[in-house]
C-alpha cells in the first residue's frame, strides 16, 4: 500500500442535493427498540438565515444509553428491533422538520446528558457538530464546561424543551439565534 501524500486532513464537501436516495434507510431515525416503555420523540426543524425551512438536510444522532453508558453495538443500518445502538440518521422533510424516536441518554460520568449531533445539508460546505442537552438537569448544566462557558442567549440554542411529552429542538444555521456549533481540538480549518 502507498502512504498518503501527507497527513493533512482531507477536506470536507457538501452532502449535495441528491443524497436522498443514498443515505436514508428504513428505520434510520428509530433508535429505540420496538415497544420499549421509555421511548421519546426528539423533533424540531432545521432553518436557514431567513428562518426558512431547510428541506434537504441530514442529521445524525449519537448518544449514550439511559444508564449513561456509550453503546458499542452494531446493528444501526439493519436494525433487529431489539438492540439499542445509540446512533441514527434523520432527513428533513419539506417543512424542515425532522424527528428521532429514541431513549433519553443518561448522564455520562455524572455530567449533564446530551445528544451529540452532526448536520449535513445542501449549501453547507462542511458538516457541523453540535449538542442537544436535555431539560431537567439544571445543576449539572450549570457545572457543564461547555454550557457554562457560553453567554445565556447562546446557551439556550443547545437546550431541548419538553412539549407534549416530546423533546423539541430547532437548529438554526444562521441568524440572531444561530445554533452554537462546535469545533474540537485537533480540528484544523
Amino acid at each position, binding site marked *: 500500500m*502507498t502512504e498518503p501524500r501527507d497527513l493533512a486532513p482531507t477536506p470536507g464537501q457538501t452532502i449535495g442535493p441528491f443524497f436522498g436516495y*443514498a443515505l436514508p434507510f428504513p428505520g434510520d431515525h428509530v433508535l429505540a427498540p420496538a415497544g420499549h416503555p421509555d421511548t421519546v420523540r426528539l423533533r424540531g426543524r432545521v432553518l436557514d438565515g431567513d428562518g426558512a425551512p431547510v428541506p434537504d438536510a441530514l442529521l445524525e444522532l449519537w448518544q449514550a444509553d439511559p444508564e449513561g453508558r456509550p453503546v458499542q*453495538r452494531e446493528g*444501526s443500518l439493519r436494525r433487529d428491533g431489539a438492540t439499542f445502538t445509540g446512533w441514527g440518521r434523520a432527513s428533513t422533510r419539506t417543512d424542515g422538520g425532522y424527528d428521532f424516536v429514541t431513549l433519553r441518554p443518561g448522564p455520562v460520568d455524572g455530567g449533564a446528558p446530551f445528544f451529540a449531533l452532526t448536520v449535513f445539508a445542501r449549501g453547507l460546505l462542511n458538516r457541523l457538530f453540535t449538542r442537544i442537552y436535555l431539560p431537567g438537569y439544571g445543576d449539572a448544566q450549570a457545572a457543564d464546561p461547555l454550557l457554562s462557558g457560553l453567554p445565556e442567549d447562546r446557551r439556550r440554542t443547545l437546550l431541548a424543551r419538553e412539549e407534549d411529552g416530546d423533546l423539541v429542538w430547532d437548529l438554526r*444555521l444562521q441568524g440572531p439565534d444561530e445554533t452554537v456549533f462546535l469545533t474540537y481540538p*485537533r480540528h*484544523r480549518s
Partner: protein
Amino acid sequence: MANPSTDPDAAAASQAEVDAEIRGIRESYERVREEGGDGTEETQPRLDYPPYRSSLLRHPTKDPHHADPEGVELLAPCFGHSDVDPVEADLTIQHSGDPIGERMVITGRVLDGDGRPVAGQLVEIWQANAAGRYIHQRDQHHAPVDPNFTGVGRCLTDADGGYTFTTIKPGPYPWKNHHNAWRPAHVHFSLFGTDFTQRMITQMYFPGDPLFDLDPILQSIVDPRARERLVATYDHDVTSHEWSTGYRWDIVLTGAHRTPLEAEDD
C-alpha cells in the same frame, strides 16, 4: 457582487461572473499568506463561500465554539457485518444487467491524523451514472437513467484501513448555481473515524478534469494543495486487463482525541 440571489434555481450569474468571484477570493487568500498573515494553510472548505449561492443563507456567521470532546464524542458508532454485505461494494452487480460506462475500481486507505488505519468503519458512496444522472426525483437533467445502475455502495474498512469499490465512472452534470454551471465528475464519500468528532462527508474527483477551475463547490477549498487532496490518482496497478480502470484515493480524517490505551503490539 451586489446581493446575489439566494434562489437555488435562479441561475442568474454568468460563468464569467462566478469565475471573477472565485478568483477574487483566491487572490485575497494568497495575498494574506504572502504578507505573512498567520501563515496557516486552510485545509477545509470555507463555509461562507458566496460563489456557491446555496451557502449564502446556510453558513454559520459566528465562530465555532471550541469544545473538549466528552462522553460519546470520544467514541464512534459501531458498524459490522450485520450492517453491510460485502456485495454492496460492487455497484455494477446490483441489477440484472451490466451498467453502461467505464467500469472502474476505486481503492484507498482511511487513516486518522496520526497515520493510524481506521479499521472496521463504514464507508458509504453515492454518485451519478455515466451520463451524469442521479436516481433522484429532483434530478431533472435530460440524460438517460441507467436501469442497471443505482449508484450507491457501502463497505467496511479492513484491518489496514483499506476500502475498495467497483463502480462506473460518473459523468459531469449541469446544476443551477449559475448559468451553464456544470459539476466536475465526482463520487460522494461518507466516512466515520474512531471518534464521533471525525465524522465527515466529502467528494472525490478525477485527475485532469477541465471543470475544476469553474466549480464553486470544489473551489470553496481555497488552498490549491488542499483541493488536490480530493483528486484521485489513476493507478495502472489497480487497472485490470480487459476489465476495469483503477483509481487510488486515500482519506485522512482528523486526529483521534483519545489517548491510545491499546498496546502497540496489537
